[in-house]
């Protein structure tokens, strides 16, 4: 039925276990949102290299994967993933665990770098803190438990999309294509892309709405 969304988001969560550090080839390792938050906080407080290594092992291959999907060559994806992780180190103090998950914060850093470098659109002042790297603050202080619930809801919301809608969502997040390009890729008119996006977004919003 819904195999795009299924393949994309409905894999059962990997059981959380002790973090293996200092080995980026440990592909199967898992990192819970709580662990990720704690690790980023440890970078900020103590400059903890073990914490950095654990974050690196988990996120570096995923960020590289994201950049490859966006059309970067393997070498460029490796470089930009490296730069993403260095920004994680340098900007750890700006991470606010009560405002969002570490994965969201890292996604935003990688997304901004992707826009910077792959499209050459943003100004290139690498080391200045980029305010848009900070996740938007939630209206009230949120606990990690609520964030986990939020994450679960996001997962469910994606699962509730039709195959076509899930495909569109994926194209927007990963495939670095403007509307017109997506229309060509899918062989449908531009207006259909726009209305499909609107429907997908409405559906997501309906699912996410009572998260507040």
């Amino acid at each position, binding site marked *: 039925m819904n195999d795009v969304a299924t393949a994309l988001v409905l894999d059962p969560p990997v059981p959380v276990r002790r973090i293996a550090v200092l080995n980026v080839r440990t592909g199967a390792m898992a990192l819970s949102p709580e662990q990720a938050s704690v690790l980023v906080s440890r970078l900020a407080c103590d400059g903890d290299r073990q914490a950095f290594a654990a974050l690196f092992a988990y996120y570096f291959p995923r960020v590289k994967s994201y950049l490859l999907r966006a059309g970067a060559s393997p070498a460029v994806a490796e470089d930009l993933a490296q730069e993403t992780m260095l920004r994680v180190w340098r900007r750890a103090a700006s991470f606010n665990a009560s405002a969002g998950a570490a994965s969201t914060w890292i996604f935003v850093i990688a997304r901004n770098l992707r826009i910077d470098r792959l499209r050459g659109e943003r100004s290139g002042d690498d080391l200045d803190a980029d305010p848009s790297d900070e*996740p938007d603050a939630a209206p009230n202080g949120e606990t990690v438990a609520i964030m986990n619930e939020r994450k679960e809801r996001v997962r469910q919301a994606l699962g509730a999309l039709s195959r076509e809608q899930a495909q569109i969502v994926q194209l927007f997040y990963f495939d670095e294509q403007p509307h017109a390009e997506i229309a060509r890729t899918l062989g449908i008119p531009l207006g259909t892309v726009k209305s499909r996006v609107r429907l997908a977004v409405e559906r997501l919003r309906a699912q*996410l709405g009572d998260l507040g």
Partner: protein
Amino acid sequence: MTTLPTSPDDLLFRHAAGALDPGFSLLVETHLEMSPAARDIHAQFEALGGMLLDELEPAQVDPSALNRALREIDAGDAPRGGERVAPSHPAMPEGFVLPESLARRAIGPWRWIGPGVRSASIRLPPASTSRAFLLEIAPGVRVPRHGHEGDETTCVLRGSFRDGEARYVEGEVAQADAGVEHDILVDSDMPCLCLIAMEGRTRPSGWFGRLYQKFRDI
């Protein structure tokens, strides 16, 4: 045809995904500064991005990558680059402070493009396929019908305007698709200052459309 519903959820979504080009990104960033509700929705879409990142199949990586990163960290974090020069802006209306996202951009001089209407273009990266500009319209001025070749989105920075039945106030976003013909009437006591992002070129279906052409290539 009428103007689309006011909720810019699809723009928030596309911004969070990193799929908007610079003119529209700037508009969304300005809107986010002005609207807590939009920030909350946008945060959910960014969380979706974080979750999708978690779910991605990890790529094959160079095993020495971590050591290279650690060496770079050890080499020190001295910031490079000199001081940033503050971008230039034309004089803003008395009592109005540019939102931070706009203040970071260079903005060209005000140009009068019609009675009671002036605009200032905003500098975007060269790769941009969209344009962004400030538009200030005096109270009571009606901007006649004009059409678009592409999407046009407006964020009200100050004052308010009516577009048919809809009324837009500070912080709100009005979206118009290609082909939409609309009238704008400023109904606030003060001039209405807007940020506009636009793809394509405005079709000259009225004097305003023709005037738009004056600065379309700036």
